[in-house]
């Protein structure tokens, strides 16, 4: 991952192929069904649906906004960055955990209603909003911060490009909870740490600068730790950042068995 030098200057002028950048963007109609729940109004959840005309580059989040802004202002969901980096809008879309801002409508089957529900396994607060506190509690328990021994260097700690690469995949986590709330073990046992906490433990266990790997492995060797994982791969499929979550969990299991990092 060193910096290669770009020695060759790019051409001042090139021939562009015809149709570069794409053509007109089409529009189409969808039916959006949202699972509604508001304990201020009723203890029962129900489904509402809307017919919407949407645009080719629109995502599920755009459809939710269209409903909220033009039809029913009480439809409630979290969102912020709207391009898949803040992790606010994880939800179940047609039965799969996705980020609403990263799921293009045109990639779904628009001949059928699009079903949107809150992620599972965390208490629903209102509509698509769940209580995230149990999720962050598990995250905090694995000591998600660099722990080092000895004197602090005056300059940076050295780390080879290979050592940096070793834990690259798990640094991408945005704590959206798509993985943890897709896990059947987590649905039935809320005490289980869940994939996201293990991913974040992995990020430090395999960081060559960190000296607390053994402590984290001990935490995850607990009865609510990695051994609850049934390797269903739901988490890897759910991750909007493409992290190989199940692989990371397997590496942590292996490290506990061999005590080699």
């Amino acid at each position, binding site marked *: *991952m*060193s*910096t290669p030098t770009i020695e*060759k200057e*790019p*051409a001042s*002028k*090139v021939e*562009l192929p015809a149709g*570069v*950048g*794409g*053509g*007109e963007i089409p529009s189409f109609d969808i039916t959006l069904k949202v699972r509604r729940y508001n*304990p*201020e109004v009723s203890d029962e959840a129900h489904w509402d649906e809307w017919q919407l005309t949407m645009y080719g*580059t629109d995502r599920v989040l755009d459809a939710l906004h269209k409903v*909220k*802004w*033009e039809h*029913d*202002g*009480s439809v*409630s969901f*979290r*969102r*912020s*960055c*709207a*391009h*898949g*980096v*803040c992790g*606010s809008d994880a939800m179940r879309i047609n039965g799969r955990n996705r980020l609403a801002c*990263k799921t*293009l409508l045109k990639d779904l089957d628009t001949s059928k209603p699009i079903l949107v529900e809150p992620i599972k396994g965390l208490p629903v*607060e*209102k509509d698509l909003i769940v209580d*995230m506190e149990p999720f962050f509690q598990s995250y905090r328990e694995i*000591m*998600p*911060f*660099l722990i080092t021994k000895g004197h602090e260097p005056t*300059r*940076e700690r*050295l*780390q*080879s*490009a290979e050592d*940096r690469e070793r*834990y*690259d995949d798990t*640094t*991408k*986590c*945005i*704590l959206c909870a798509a993985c943890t709330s897709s896990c059947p073990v987590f649905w039935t046992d809320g005490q289980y740490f869940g994939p996201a906490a293990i991913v974040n433990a992995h990020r430090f266990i395999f*960081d060559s*600068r*960190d000296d607390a790997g053994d402590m984290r492995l001990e935490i995850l060797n607990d009865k609510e730790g990695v051994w609850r994982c049934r390797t269903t791969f739901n988490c890897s499929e759910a991750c909007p950042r493409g992290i190989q979550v199940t692989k990371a969990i397997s590496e942590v299991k292996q490290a506990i068995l061999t005590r080699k990092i």
Partner: protein
Amino acid sequence: MQVHKYDVVIVGAGGAGMRAAIESGQRARTAVLTKLYPTRSHTGAAQGGMCAALANVEEDNWEWHTFDTVKGGDYLVDQDAAEVMAKEAIDAVLDLEKMGLPFNRTPEGRIDQRRFGGHTRDHGKAPVRRSCYAADRTGHMILQTLYQNCVKHNVEFYNEYYVLDLLMVDQEVTENGATRLQKRVAGVVSYDLASGELHVFQAKSVIFASGGVGKVYKTTSNAHTLTGDGMGIAFRRGIPLEDMEFFQFHPTGLAGLGILLSEAARGEGAILRNSEGERFMERYAPTIKDLAPRDIVARSMANEVREGRGAGPNKDYVLLDLTHLEPAHIDAKLPDITEFARTYLGVEPYTEPVPVFPTAHYAMGGIPTNIKAEVLQDNDTIVPGLYAAGEVACVSVHGSNRLGTNSLLDINVFGKRAGIYAAEYALSADFVDIPADPLADTVALLDTARSSEGGERVAQIRKELQDIMDANVQVFRTEETLLEALRVIDGLEERYKRISVQDKGKRFNLDLLEAVELGFLLDMAKVMTAAALHRKESRGGHFREDYPTRDDENFMTHSMAYKDPSAVETSGVRLETKPVIFTRYQPMERKY
């Protein structure tokens, strides 16, 4: 009424707020209030890097970095602040590495560095490798690392607590025989989104670190939640806002969507082309070409489109060409942004150029502070106990145009300073009594939005605001476009009084939240437009076609916008000026 008492209250949990919290939390009892969860903050969307003259890969020093920052800001930068930032940049990067940030590394295992727009060797001779980075997700790594260290230090967060008011008292102070009013900070009022309850936080020190105001525009790289709340609260309470006419348009937003593609793409060798396949930046900035500062590149792109050399079916964008770069190099250095092009436009950057156009990105202006992050109530007087850092503040290190990477640097350097100075002040000061009936204004604000039956919709007014700002207060401005924008905003404000919010509940009432946010957006759009009218010259990010040159004689000053209902010509915004601080560099013509 629930009242909490802390030494220090921090409003906002992005990079600046959490960097402040790490310092303040170790010195004094500190609470952080955020309308999101900390890890949702928009610092996480920053991509390219954080500049510091580490000189890990080639010769560099902080004085060159200072010069680039001053020149990049078209000499409107306060040079004492730029020196502080460039000098402390080195420790700011090393601090983050020690906290665990996974920077990319050189073959020797040091922090790797790459090129970025406007950052040069020896006062403009050639691009220099100064940006420390973690692929194209540096902001994500900074946000995660700071949050991890807040967890380590047991920082107390109040998540989804939306701050709506700043409590201050005016005290009479007599100095040299003259009596004046001195503002003093007492605390903040916050709305708990989960329950709909109001909470008063009494504090000796308050730090605003609540971010920017990009949502005044339609096409923007900013999150939905960046609605200028902190700036708006301060402005309504009589604090001036500095240099609000300067808003940065990032050259490379995905066309039509505004999603950011980092300048790191051009730092790694990508180039811009028009519909004729021409590398047009060779004409506008012959020395550093595509790596010219953002204001120049954005204007050049807009000009290509205006002169008919735009690409696409409507000829309304240009192309970012990465096709001459190795796919393996793209994957290693620019994985996220190339994924954005694939996901959102269906374009494969290995083989096809990516449609791009300038996107509203960053407010150079904000709440005025000095280099200790202390907020100013006028040109010279600080408000004891009140601090601001990051995009909400104007210190001013960015002047009229911010260089790429200097925002991640700003939040770390001045976030840290704010945390230290706020805690030190709190340890030496007493609480100021909460004013009588502290919730009155907030209750009125919420009740108006909740109970009005006027039939105007928040989303419709916001859309019309964003449309007029995109059309009239963008890269190119004239007196005519700005006056028209002010007129439109005035009309929208009238309609805003008649909005109705459909959700009448208390629990997670985000409908109500959006109504309140729109109020701040309207105020800030007005301030930005009035300040742009006032500045009859072109400098940095502010280009007036009716005054196309820089006018140092009349406008080498910061603008200070005060809320003043008697200023009817400019919609209740009164403009004054504040001198620029010079230390080493005299203004020169800005060429690249």
